[in-house]
């Protein structure tokens, strides 16, 4: 085997240009795979994080009716406790469940601010600031001022939204909204903070206010439109879910729906399907590159027919002749895949710092996605690209190698 490897390696240099072209084809395919995987991984990881922070939590509890009409931001179907227990007691119970570390209430409703030119619509979120700061990345996005404090009539909003209503931090703003009793009312708030974010949701849609203030204005009791449950690890959400569902069932909370983050958003489900599809795309890419290697090996078998006959005469078995050609294909695959994996790794390492700006494509698109995608630079992607390059190319090299192994020695020796 060792001497076959030695010959296979040396044979690669018999026609250097052809070998280089084959290696380059594999290297290019593997590089594209490593880069694409880094890009998709960066996009998916970031998008999952955003959905978890600003939409689904690890597990989200909402009223089933509310789930049907979520876009209407109805205040008629709130989470207002369970059985005889208040919302605070319900939160405490949920925090006791295994794996659940934090329960975050959010009260979402529609609001608007009138400027001289137009009525600017926005999403008002009544929040518990401490929990939001602990769970999301809002602290990093707060470019000016501070987060809202409980009990105060104050708001925090994004830079773009402030521009739309022509206000800045320190100024006051009057907002109009519809209460739980469907009456149209208005209130004035002090703007205490500004959020500067790439995320359109934070930059131009949402206005944060203390949840107790929101409840008071909307004439709600101790209620929220949703409860977000946060566990130790997002990937364990499915494991914690049955205990949450069980708690709701046993305490008369049949009207509530508990969903893990994976099931809570159709976009996340779409991303998961895309990840599987991309795996097939990677396979297809390497198969395309393998065609170059197959072509090279077919030419090699043709050129070395007499040599194959000689080897056969010397006593080399068909399986050993096959091995010799597969080894030659594998050697090209190894070098090409290594070069491609390193190349892809370098591109990802560079782009992980600089990012890929998709802002233009994401304008007016209603999905939670950071318009600047930062590919992840992981050894895992390089190993994946390398492995798929070597395995697929080696397997495809069997086709021409079998042709060589099937040659009759007398036929092969006659060939000139």
């Amino acid at each position: 085997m060792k001497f076959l490897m030695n010959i296979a390696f040396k044979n690669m240099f018999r026609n250097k240009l052809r070998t280089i072209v084959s290696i380059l084809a594999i290297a290019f395919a593997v590089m594209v795979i490593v880069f694409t995987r880094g890009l998709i991984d960066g996009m998916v990881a970031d998008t999952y994080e955003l959905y978890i922070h600003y939409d689904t939590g690890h597990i989200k509890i909402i009223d089933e009716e509310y789930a049907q009409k979520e876009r209407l931001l109805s205040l008629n179907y709130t989470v207002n406790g369970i059985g005889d227990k208040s919302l605070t007691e319900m939160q405490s119970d949920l925090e006791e469940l295994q794996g659940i570390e934090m329960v975050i209430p959010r009260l979402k409703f529609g609001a608007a601010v009138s400027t001289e030119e137009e009525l600017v619509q926005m999403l008002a979120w009544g929040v518990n600031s401490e929990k939001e700061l602990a769970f999301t990345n809002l602290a990093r996005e707060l470019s000016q001022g501070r987060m809202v404090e409980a009990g105060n009539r104050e708001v925090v909003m994004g830079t773009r939204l402030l521009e739309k209503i022509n206000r800045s931090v320190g100024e006051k703003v009057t907002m109009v909204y519809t209460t739980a009793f469907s009456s149209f009312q208005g209130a004035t708030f002090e703007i205490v903070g500004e959020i500067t974010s790439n995320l359109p949701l934070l930059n131009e849609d949402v206005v944060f206010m203390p949840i107790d203030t929101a409840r008071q204005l909307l004439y709600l009791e101790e209620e929220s439109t949703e409860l977000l449950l946060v566990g130790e690890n997002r990937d364990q959400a499915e494991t914690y879910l049955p205990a949450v569902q069980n708690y709701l069932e046993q305490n008369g909370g049949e009207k509530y729906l508990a969903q893990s983050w994976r099931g809570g958003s159709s976009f996340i489900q779409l991303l998961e399907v895309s990840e599987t599809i991309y795996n097939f795309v990677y396979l297809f890419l390497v198969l395309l590159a393998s065609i170059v290697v197959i072509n090279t090996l077919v030419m090699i078998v043709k050129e070395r027919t007499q040599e194959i006959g000689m080897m056969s005469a010397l006593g080399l078995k068909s399986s050993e002749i096959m091995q010799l050609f597969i080894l030659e294909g594998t050697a090209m695959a190894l070098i090409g895949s290594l070069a491609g994996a390193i190349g892809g790794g370098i591109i990802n390492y560079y782009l992980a710092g600089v990012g890929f700006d998709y802002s233009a494509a994401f304008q007016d698109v209603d999905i939670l996605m950071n318009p600047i995608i930062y590919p992840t630079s992981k050894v895992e992607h390089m190993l994946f690209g390398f492995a798929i390059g070597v395995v697929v190319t080696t397997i495809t090299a069997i086709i021409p190698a079998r042709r060589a192994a099937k040659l009759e020695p007398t036929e092969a020796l006659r060939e000139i």
Partner: protein
Amino acid sequence: MSLIKLRGLEKTYQQGKIAVPALRGIDLEIESGEFTTIFGPSGSGKTTLLNMIGCLDKSTAGEIIFDEHSINDLNNKELAEVRRYNLGFIFQSYNLIPVLTAFENVEFAIRLIEKHSKKERRDRVMSLLEEVGLGEMANRRPNELSGGQKQRVAIARALIKEPKLVLADEPTANLDSETSQEVLELMKEMNRESNTTFIFSTHDPQVMDYARRLIEIKDGKITNDQRRD
């Protein structure tokens, strides 16, 4: 003792719907240590006969007994084993592996046997290369050797595993007469020293002069078989 016995050997090639007989009932015995030449015009069946004896092809009818074992019923893998351990081949166009040095080309044949240590292998290859007069050129690749030198490497490659039989298909066809003579002298010397059996196919009268047994073949049949002292 007979090394090879052929009994009523026939070989017919199928070319489309036409059956082309290449050998038509060959009966032949070759003793150990013989230095035999098979000659005859082109298309007479020399190479086919050599291929049959060399276990490279299967007969249509008849029997081949090699070293007292019938090889008629062996499969391709078993035939490869017979070639690996018992046979050496020398080809008209040398058929050396261009990416290997003279040393590695000779070593290639012995590495298939896997019964020698690395040092043993090295010593045997070097000693044989010196015997064929190429000790100084062990590290040269085939493209750095003349035709005669390439054929000497091929001879060393055929002999390195100490085979019972060496088959040479027109070994001097690509060499000038002076080099042919050197190569033939070398093979004769090897035949004398190691008692290895040599069978040649040739058109070359020079080769026939060296042979101790001359077998003439025409239209797939042996027409003349004479021994010389």
